[in-house]
């Protein structure tokens, strides 16, 4: 599959402090790629380099097969979208007027405004001024703006950090629909559940380096201790090996009608992150 992003030995130094070093990864066209790491791990620095907002100190970053320095050219900017933690919306203007500006800049028909507002559950609020919106609503407008021109590649920096569960699910549906249409999504998040729900592959970034990169399912299998937990009706919890020996014991408990619940002991992505990096995601 074609790579839409290729990063080799990427390095960025700010005032003698390495923000990222020796970062290597590829993002395949059409996938949702999760870039996970705690605050200060270099996620935003990487997004800024990949969108041409920062010049790397060393290494190579290719987007659409071209060096990121080319992203400064207006023709390339039409091909990607960015949602960052800074809303970048005009507070004195309405939601509609904010999106109308970006329709004109990206040469998108105004009819698209209703479509993206429906995708973020704001179709009834288009006349409201940005300055009157809650943080969650503002976040949704920012996302709507990023979706407006259906970019080939969408960078999302913590897209659901300020949202309630209902709107988060709504956003997930919108992102999946966009991904099905062919948009590759590069997502940074602290939320491990979000990464598991949305991402085809995830990379763990810690102290400026990638520690692990794979599909969430494969990582969970790789770090699983191959045991199952059986909760008995007596409220006793028993950990059994997943092999033949465990199967026999489980069979015995089931025959005796003692089993209340059975759980496989797969680690969460959060558990794996802590195991690999020794740090919690926060």
């Amino acid at each position: 599959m074609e790579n839409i992003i290729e990063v080799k030995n990427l390095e960025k130094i700010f005032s003698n402090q390495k923000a990222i070093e020796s970062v290597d990864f590829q993002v395949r066209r059409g996938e949702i790629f999760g870039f996970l790491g705690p605050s200060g791990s270099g996620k935003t620095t990487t997004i800024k380099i990949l969108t041409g907002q920062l010049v790397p100190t060393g290494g190579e970053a290719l987007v659409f097969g071209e060096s990121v320095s080319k992203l400064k050219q207006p023709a390339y900017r039409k091909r990607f979208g960015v949602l960052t933690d800074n809303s970048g919306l005009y507070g004195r203007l309405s939601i509609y007027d904010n999106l109308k500006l970006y329709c004109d800049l990206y040469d998108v028909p105004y009819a698209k405004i209703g479509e993206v507002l429906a995708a973020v559950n704001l179709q009834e609020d288009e006349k409201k001024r940005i300055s009157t919106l809650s943080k969650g609503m503002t976040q949704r407008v920012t996302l709507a703006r990023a979706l407006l021109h259906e970019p080939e590649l969408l960078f999302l920096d913590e897209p659901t950090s300020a949202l309630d569960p209902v709107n988060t699910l709504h956003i997930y549906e919108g992102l999946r629909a966009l991904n099905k249409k062919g948009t590759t999504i590069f997502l940074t998040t602290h939320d491990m559940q979000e990464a598991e729900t949305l991402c085809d592959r995830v990379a763990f970034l810690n102290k400026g380096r990638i520690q692990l990169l794979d599909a969430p399912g494969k990582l969970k299998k790789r770090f699983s201790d191959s045991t199952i937990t059986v909760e008995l009706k007596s409220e006793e919890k028993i950990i059994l090996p997943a092999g033949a020996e465990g199967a026999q014991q489980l069979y015995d408990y089931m025959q005796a009608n003692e089993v209340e619940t059975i759980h496989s002991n797969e680690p969460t992505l959060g558990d794996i992150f802590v195991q690999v990096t020794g740090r919690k995601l926060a």
Partner: protein
Amino acid sequence: MTFSWKRVNAIFMKDYKDFSRNFAVSIVIFLSPVLAAIYGRIGVTAIESHYMLINLTFAMVAAFVQSCLIAEEKEKNTLRGLMLSPASTTEILTGKSLLSLVLTLFTILLSMFLAEYKPANIAVVAIAILLSALFYIALGTLLGLFAKSVMEASVIVLPVMVIFSFGTFITSLAEQYPILKAATYLPNIQLLEIGIKVEAGAGFGDVWLQLAVIAAWVVVMFMLTAVVYRKRMVD
């Protein structure tokens, strides 16, 4: 990529709507017409007074408003959104300058009417004013790019208002202190010279040097602004 008037107009219309709701900044456009109305009432006729008013409008509307428009885009992170869009540097800077240009020219025309100033050669004065407006807008853009917030822009622009609004003081000071002779090449002094010469019956041929000096200031300021803007595109 070709220049798109659609993108320029979109930025202009956005600025117009935003500015019309930003009373803290938009109120400055009334200062010059109010002073001009007073001039008209008390019968001020000195050419220096008319050009002080015109230069004040340049400082207050072209430079101050423009610096605030740019600084606010930076402060609210909206300039980054424009920079990441397909709009080119030229389209963004043209779009961002158009509102200040329209407001400056409208305010000057209104002020001239209220102060009852009728130039002897309208064409020469119109070109001099247009060139000067471009210089002050580029200066305002530059100051806005250096400022981190609207508040900071309002402070940075103060020396500009003092230096460029009161040109006649600089001229008289330059007579006393030769070191200030270079200051007589400032665009506000050149504009005043054009105004005085035009009243004495001068045409294009007599003021080409002053027009060329102002044009040179415009070119230098535009180049400087473009360089700083491109540097601001990357963190």
